[in-house]
């Protein structure tokens, strides 16, 4: 059935059979032939000046080709060695000083990986220790500084004013000021406050990061596990001081990413080494090393929410601190984008948010599914729940009353469109039986229910391009730079094009990102592809349809308006010509192609520096809700999820099956963040950076029942009304679970994860207070 593969159809993901049997080939599967395998010697110090780096012993080992240090690379590249999406602060190899335990200090190139890894142990470094900045408290106290001065990159113009700022660990502050929130709080009748903490976590895509780089005819070519091929090309061109045309970045499908494989990971080092030595180099991170490449920001939020005597929300105040580790990565953007939604998706009279991005001597934190929003959702969804309890109101009904509706202006000044929070909340509440009586239990096992709502802005402004080649045999080749990492973009982009062209989506091949061939696309991230690249794909398919119709008009010798594209071919009145025949007739050759291209670009109104407000801070919104019913074992503190419902407003589901999978997949990841998932650091040293020690959700952690709910409130400008969904499901999981725990046993937890010990301790404290 053709329509199965069009918009709204549940066609199977591209190459499911190949995925199941492991036939999809990934970057690490590519044979490299004669190449230098690279291993990295890492810092043992959180914060220290680098003295001599002793490489002689490693160099003397058989099979070792070369050992390079940060100083070697700095000699070659100067300040261009420092890269990063928001701040150009991260060297491919540490130069002059190290800023976290595990930072790359020297790279060994050898005939094979085992030799290279063994030789890294023979490198030793003289350090001159500096006072370490272990956490947010140290950093904000401000006696030691991770960086001597701030170095904004050229990517974001609005960070320029920070260049050269010294004596601070705060690299960016976003402020939202709407009305006088302090005065409104004082005048209000009921205020709830909280100190919230969401720890650093790790993405752990099962595929390990891998980069292969080589020099070919004076060009730097690279095959790498990245979500951001266009970005990487620019970074490498800047680093090597080459025109973009002399850098080629290619990818393969990724074995998961979730934000881990984007911006500057292994790529700058691989490019620098290949360029400097002239060798083909292959870098692959071990799982332990992958933990050090990037993390999710740990975040502290001190916040309050105030209602007046009638229960209207009058004031939201929050101080948000994102721990970005040793390098800013995209932390400043996270700080702003998440800061502006810290009050939550509610009608609130006034708001004051200060959101800061803070350097510490830890592995760098970067983007992770949700882009910092889950950490602030943890705050606003706990606060509003507690406020409802305080007022003796039903937490579902209280939220519902205050949720932003279509056309409402959010506290940061932008209106809501295609963000149906109310239907999301209603549908999860219905799904988990919120309106039915709850058997609460009376003994050791207590039952409770909780809900939470999430809001997130899509990355704006961004650019997407698409090129479509329509082949004479009525198949098509779609060139885009979106990277399929499991979300199914290759599948839904083919569905969009197939729908417009009334063709079989299985006959459309999506070319893997290759910057020599596929056109620029900002990034595959932030749930932006369906809307942005999807729009470019819809446009390119429309352009192609117009070309085919023009050919049809010539063929039939009628006006274009009298020609229609159908699954059977071009039709005019009673006459039909198959597309293959039409194109063949036009070119007089088999295998010829027609080409079309299209662009889709979004714009924004930058937020005001003083107030943080903007009438269009984002192209569109993500809206989601979570409902959960669970039990708590009051003796052990163990939480058991009986039913979790996850709803997301996706505008229009291009492929409902894949949308549901994104919702449940995000929910399962969120369950880990709620209950056990966290990176533990002791004096700057990561102590659980292996999969023996780092707990991830397994099949055992599935709720008894997991219900995905697709809400469709079409977006005026989305392709067929569609928006993305990759992050929507994760936003509210932790607070929904904590709210249900509150409902079950009466304790409010504000520190994630909700470990059994933390629940037992809270129950004991409550008992003490009551007695």
């Amino acid at each position: 059935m053709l329509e199965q593969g069009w918009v709204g159809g549940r066609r199977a993901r591209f190459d499911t059979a190949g995925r199941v049997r492991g036939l999809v080939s990934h970057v690490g599967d590519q044979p490299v032939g004669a190449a230098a395998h690279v291993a990295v010697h890492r810092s043992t110090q959180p914060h220290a000046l680098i003295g001599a780096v002793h490489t002689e012993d490693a160099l003397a080992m058989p099979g070792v080709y070369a050992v390079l240090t940060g100083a070697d690379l700095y000699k070659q590249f100067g300040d261009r060695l420092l890269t990063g999406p928001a701040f150009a602060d991260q060297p491919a190899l540490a130069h002059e000083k190290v800023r976290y335990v595990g930072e790359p200090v020297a790279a060994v190139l050898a005939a094979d990986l085992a030799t290279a890894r063994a030789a890294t142990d023979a490198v030793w470094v003289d350090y001159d220790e500096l006072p370490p900045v272990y956490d947010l408290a140290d950093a904000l106290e401000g006696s030691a500084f991770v960086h001597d001065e701030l170095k904004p990159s050229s990517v974001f113009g609005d960070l320029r004013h920070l260049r050269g700022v010294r004596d601070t660990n705060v690299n960016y502050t976003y402020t939202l000021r709407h009305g006088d929130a302090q005065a409104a709080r004082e005048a209000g009748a009921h205020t709830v406050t909280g100190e919230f903490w969401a720890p650093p976590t790790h993405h752990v895509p099962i595929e390990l990061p891998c980069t292969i780089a080589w020099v070919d005819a004076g060009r730097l070519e690279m095959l790498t596990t990245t979500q951001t091929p266009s970005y990487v090309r620019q970074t490498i061109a800047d680093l090597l001081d080459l025109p973009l045309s002399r850098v080629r970045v290619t990818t393969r499908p990724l074995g998961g990413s979730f934000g881990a494989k984007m911006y500057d990971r292994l790529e700058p080092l691989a490019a620098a080494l290949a360029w400097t030595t002239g060798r083909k180099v292959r870098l692959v991170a071990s799982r332990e090393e992958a933990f050090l490449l990037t993390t999710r920001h740990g975040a502290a939020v001190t916040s309050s929410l105030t209602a007046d005597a009638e229960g209207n929300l009058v004031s939201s105040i929050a101080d948000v601190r994102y721990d970005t580790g040793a390098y800013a990565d995209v932390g400043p953007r996270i700080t702003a984008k998440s800061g502006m939604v810290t009050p939550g998706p509610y009608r609130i009279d006034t708001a004051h948010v200060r959101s800061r991005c803070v350097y510490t001597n830890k592995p760098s934190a970067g983007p992770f599914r949700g882009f910092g929003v889950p950490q602030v959702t943890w705050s606003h969804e706990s606060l509003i729940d507690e406020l409802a309890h305080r007022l003796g109101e039903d937490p579902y009904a209280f939220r519902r009353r205050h949720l932003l509706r279509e056309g409402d202006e959010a506290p940061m000044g932008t209106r809501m469109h295609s963000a149906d929070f109310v239907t999301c909340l209603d549908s999860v509440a219905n799904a988990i039986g919120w309106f039915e009586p709850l058997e609460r239990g009376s003994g050791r096992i207590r039952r409770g229910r909780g809900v939470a709502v999430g809001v997130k802005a899509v990355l704006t402004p961004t650019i997407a391009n698409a090129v479509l080649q329509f082949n004479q045999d009525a198949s098509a080749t779609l060139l885009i730079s979106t990277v399929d990492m499991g979300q199914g973009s290759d599948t839904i982009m083919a569905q969009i094009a197939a729908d417009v062209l009334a063709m079989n989506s299985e006959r459309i091949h999506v070319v893997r990102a290759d910057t020599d061939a596929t056109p620029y696309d900002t990034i595959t991230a932030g749930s932006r592809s369906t809307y942005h690249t999807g729009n470019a794909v819809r446009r390119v398919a429309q352009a192609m349809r117009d070309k085919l119709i023009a050919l049809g008009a010539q063929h039939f010798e009628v006006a274009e308006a009298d020609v229609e594209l159908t699954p059977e071919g071009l039709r005019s009145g009673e006459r039909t010509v198959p597309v293959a025949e039409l194109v063949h007739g036009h070119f007089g050759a088999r295998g010829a192609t027609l080409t079309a291209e299209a662009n889709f670009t979004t714009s924004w109104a930058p937020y005001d520096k003083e107030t943080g407000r903007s009438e269009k801070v984002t192209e569109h919104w993500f809206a989601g809700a979570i409902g959960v019913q669970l039990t708590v074992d009051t003796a052990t503190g163990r939480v058991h999820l009986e039913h979790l419902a996850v709803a997301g407003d996706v505008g229009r589901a291009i492929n409902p099956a894949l949308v549901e999978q994104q919702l449940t997949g995000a929910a399962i990841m969120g369950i880990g963040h709620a209950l056990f998932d966290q990176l533990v650091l002791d004096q700057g040293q990561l102590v659980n950076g292996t999969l023996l020690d780092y707990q991830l959700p397994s099949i055992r952690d599935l709720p008894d029942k997991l219900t995905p709910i697709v809400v469709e409130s079409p977006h005026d400008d989305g392709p067929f009304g569609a928006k993305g969904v990759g992050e929507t499901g994760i936003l509210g999981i932790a607070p929904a679970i904590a709210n249900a725990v509150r409902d079950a046993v009466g304790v409010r937890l504000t520190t994630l994860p909700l470990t059994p010990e933390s629940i037992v301790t809270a129950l004991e404290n409550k008992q003490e207070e009551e007695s």
Partner: protein
Amino acid sequence: MTVRITLKVNGVDHRVAVEDDTLLLDVLREQVGTTSVREGCGVGACGACTVLSGGSSVSSCLALARRYDGAEITTAEGLDENDAVVSSFVECGAAQCGYCIPGFVLMSTELLTDNPRPTEQEITDHLEGNICRCGTYPEIRRAVATAAQRRSPA
């Protein structure tokens, strides 16, 4: 010390040279070419490197190759498209990025060979050592139940 061993992988004999400490994982990926066998953790904690040796699951990231001289190894590539487990995974959409899935397919094959009609609890018990970071567990669970049905209809 380098020794030569024979591995029968998916029915085909492979003569391979291995050192004392060569891992079965590396031999399968680099010498035999079965790249469905994947390293996710290197410490036996994710299941991405699972293979069947004589029908029993082995974490190839922990297995020394030389101990498998003469072994009959099955990887996911070796299963037919019409195999009950493979076709059930495909039909249930039990793959997102798919990186972890070959490991789940082989664990499920082992389970259903030993226990043709597993309960939901038994499926969970057998698969809990495998990690799917995309969170495909609901579809995987359905796929295993479907495959059980398909292999031995009640």
